[in-house]
């Protein structure tokens, strides 16, 4: 039900009514609307109930275990929120003079420094507004680097087949061809395939490490040497940075450019509640091309650097200081953790993933890479259940909703058939992990003894199984407004 369906004509909510005095309105008469806006006429209480009840239908990290692989759905500490909402931050106008926002700029400068240190890069720009924009900035900088050297024959970006779909999309957006590199049977990049693919046409390699297969790329140093020897650069996709935070640094692995997802690793709001934030870090090679704005410091004064300070910049990615409120939350999170705390994030997220992986294996689930230690996530494959019982990963995912769990990532990465990519994160207790294993065990038994229970799921949700084909083919997003109200 949408709120317009609750509306009754004339049910005006006086307390929330806006004043209609015209004195300060300088919009020319011809530009003003002739008819009143069509708004739902409901009481204040109806509006409150409507949206509260909608929110109760949500699965969110505040209500449920949310082990969505490669998404790092962890708790967003309330302290980050309340400190970012201090009046001095909230009331700061983005166009006010730098001299009036020294506190805010100092926080941003410190955040740049902390991100630099924890990733081993030379400089960081907070400008990209989300992970995909961070990727775009990163590859655009690689392009700018080659162009500046007149090395323009390089037209190809190498991407392992385990990568997120955003990687090839980014490369194409930046005018490159994509060459896919196969994965070997242990989940590492197929080194021989990479060797065969690298050449004078290689502009760079985009790599996620740990990969989306939930394993650490063991030959990363050799890979970096190989790509660099051919004149290409290395791009680090920070999707899975949580697993190695403070333990290993992408800069030390040989990466030239990296993006981070603050909404994952640094625990700012994620998913529908975003917005995201995708800062980029670079080493010395790419320093001149950093996206603007960047917060700089001259003497004791902080100020926003723009194209005058960074003339070769790949471009401006945000009008003001990126997603400022989100950056503040990440800053506070990083300050609360400190250096030691960041290391514990890597340790506990990895410990939780390995514990959950072993427990599920003991419960009879098949692991995609049983001979590998998990990073912060791991893959279970249900191909046996799909083949023998006709109960698929999608069925398991839907049944998990009935049992009170948001499903893990399904059918990604594409390399592993019928897979669940499971990421518990460091913020869950052992009790929660044990309860999840119990739920998975219950579903496994149901699939064997009473498969309809699983294939017909969900049964307790507001809607039953949705027709995904129809949803994809016949988009119907508009609620028809009734004439008499218009």
């Amino acid at each position, binding site marked *: 039900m949408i709120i317009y369906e609750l509306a009754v004509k004339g049910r005006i909510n006086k307390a929330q009514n806006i004043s209609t005095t015209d004195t300060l309105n300088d919009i020319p008469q011809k530009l003003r609307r002739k008819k009143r806006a069509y708004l739902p006429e409901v009481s204040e209480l109806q509006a409150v109930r409507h949206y509260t009840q909608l929110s109760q239908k949500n699965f969110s990290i505040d209500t449920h275990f949310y082990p969505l692989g490669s998404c790092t759905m962890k708790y967003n500490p309330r302290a980050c929120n309340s400190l970012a909402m201090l009046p001095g931050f909230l009331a700061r106008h983005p166009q006010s003079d730098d001299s009036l926002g020294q506190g805010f700029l100092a926080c941003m400068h410190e955040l740049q420094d902390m991100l630099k240190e924890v990733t081993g890069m030379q400089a960081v720009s907070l400008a990209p507004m989300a992970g995909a924009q961070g990727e775009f900035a990163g590859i655009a900088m690689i392009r700018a680097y080659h162009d500046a050297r007149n090395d323009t024959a390089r037209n190809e970006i190498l991407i392992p087949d385990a990568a997120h*779909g955003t990687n090839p999309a980014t490369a194409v957006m930046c005018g490159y061809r994509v060459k896919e590199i196969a994965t070997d049977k242990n989940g590492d990049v197929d080194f021989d395939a990479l060797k065969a693919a690298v050449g004078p046409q290689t502009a760079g390699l985009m790599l996620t490490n740990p990969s989306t297969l939930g394993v650490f790329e063991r030959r990363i140093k050799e890979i970096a040497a190989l790509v660099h020897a051919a004149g290409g650069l290395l791009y680090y996709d920070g999707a899975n940075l949580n697993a190695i935070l403070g333990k290993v640094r992408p800069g030390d692995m040989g990466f030239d450019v990296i993006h981070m997802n603050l909404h994952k690793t640094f625990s700012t709001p994620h998913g529908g509640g975003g917005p995201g934030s995708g800062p980029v870090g670079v080493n010395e090679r790419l320093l001149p091309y950093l996206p603007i704005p960047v917060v700089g410091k001259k003497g004791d004064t902080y100020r926003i650097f723009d194209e005058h300070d960074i003339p070769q910049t790949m471009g401006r990615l945000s009008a003001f200081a990126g997603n400022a409120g989100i950056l503040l939350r990440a800053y506070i999170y990083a300050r609360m953790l400190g250096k030691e705390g960041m290391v514990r994030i890597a340790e506990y997220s990895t410990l939780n993933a390995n514990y959950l992986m072993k427990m599920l294996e003991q419960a009879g689930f098949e692991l995609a890479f049983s001979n590998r230690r998990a990073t912060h996530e791991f893959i279970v494959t249900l191909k046996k259940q799909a083949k023998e019982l006709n109960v698929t990963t999608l069925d398991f995912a839907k049944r998990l909703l009935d049992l009170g769990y948001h499903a893990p990532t399904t059918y990604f990465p594409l390399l592993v058939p019928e897979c669940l990519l499971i990421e518990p994160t460091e913020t869950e207790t052992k009790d929660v992990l044990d309860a999840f294993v119990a739920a998975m065990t219950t579903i496994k038994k149901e699939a064997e003894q009473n498969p309809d229970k699983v294939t017909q799921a969900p049964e307790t949700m507001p809607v039953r199984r949705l027709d995904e084909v129809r949803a*994809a*083919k016949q988009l119907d997003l508009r609620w028809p407004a009734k004439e008499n109200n218009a």
Partner: protein
Amino acid sequence: MSTIPSGLKYTQSHEWIELADDDTATIGITDHAQSLLGDLVYVEIPDVGQDVAAAEACAVVESVKAASDIYSPFSGEVLEANEELADTPELINTDPYDAGWIFKVRYHNKADLDELMDADAYAEFAAKEDH
């Protein structure tokens, strides 16, 4: 178990190829491939007259689970593409080897044919990949 017609040739990326006598071939994806992808919702076909290179992506199939590239087994020129798939991508699910064909190519290089598998070799390949 998926069907693998014996008269066709196959690739490791799960395309089937029906060779005609006049250096042309019809290409689609195998029953095994469509069953892995699940219900298709969108197909992007190549342009008629477009030049394609061997092992290069020239079409896309998208299902509720994933989007996947279709590779041309040959270098050559696209002669025809299955326009029906725009409105009814599910033809690939229901009839992968006939009504679900994707495009036709005139190939330039006969040597490209040496890379293809016959039905037995593909059956073995698909079974191995399953493990």
